[in-house]
């Protein structure tokens, strides 16, 4: 008896649900057709097409980062540079003094000889 009731209920529900299915609103039928066509057209090539731009974009960003990372940036004018410049300048100045010293060397030799002659 229960089986018979279950069977009747099953049949009845099946009919009702099929009616529901047949009476799908026009708007939803249209959207389903759109969804189907989209799935059929995109699924075959969608991932492959999307893969290449993604790979390209990631490679480009990596290259860009690498380019900026390894590029020689203009070094800021720090203390070290200033001291380097100063030492170079001072070396240059020192060299000038030496040249003058060498140029006057004959005079110092003459002066020394005169002093030795006066004392000797």
């Amino acid at each position: 008896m229960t089986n018979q009731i279950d069977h009747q209920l099953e049949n009845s529900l099946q009919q009702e649900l099929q009616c529901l299915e047949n009476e799908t609103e026009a708007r939803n039928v249209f959207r389903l057709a759109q969804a189907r066509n989209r799935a059929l057209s995109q699924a075959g090539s969608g991932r492959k097409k999307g893969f290449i731009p993604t790979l390209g974009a990631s490679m480009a960003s990596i290259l860009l980062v690498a380019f900026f990372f390894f590029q020689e940036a203009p070094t800021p004018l720090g203390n070290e540079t200033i001291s380097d410049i100063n030492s170079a300048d001072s070396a240059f100045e020192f060299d000038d003094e030496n040249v003058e010293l060498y140029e006057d060397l004959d005079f110092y030799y003459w002066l020394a000889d005169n002093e030795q002659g006066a004392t000797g």
Partner: protein
Amino acid sequence: MTLSVVEKTATEEQSIEGAQKALGYSSMEEFLKTIERRAFHMARMATGNSDTAMDIVQDSMYKLVEKYGDKTPQEWKPLFYRILNSKTIDYYRRKAVRDRVFPWSKYVPNSDNEQSTDIVDLAPGRISDTPDEMIMRSQRIEKITQSVNALPRRQREAFMLRCWEGMSTIETAEAMKCSQGSVKTHYSRAMHTLRDLLEDYNYD
């Protein structure tokens, strides 16, 4: 020898054609056409929202075509319903997280309750019965929908696949990723609950 091979191939082709005729579809497009409305209503019953149901059906179609397009047409139906069930579960999970994070989102009115004003949108898929019969039917459908929604998820899946889709126990077990015994138990419990819930429903 060659003739026997040719005959054998011809017999195999005939049997494949016979199977395709029995299925009612041979290409993926035909299959999706036969299944889309039912899948949509199943998803709508499960989620209570047309837009969400449409998204779920579209995602399921997409995945079936993409991943299982090379399978035989006999395998498509269980695979499609397995995907549909997975997508529906994903929706429940996302909704649970969203409701926890944004509790106020639970109180957003359901778009299905808003009546469309476009007469084309309201038009049924077929020209049918008198208004009284239509109202009676819509009330019965509403009652059935409520009762089906009251079922636990696995029972609802078993009911929809067995009763609505008319799948065999083997196919249902494949779609639900469980044993045939479990399918029988879920379906039996679902029918028992529905019998109680639809006590006043006239199904003679």
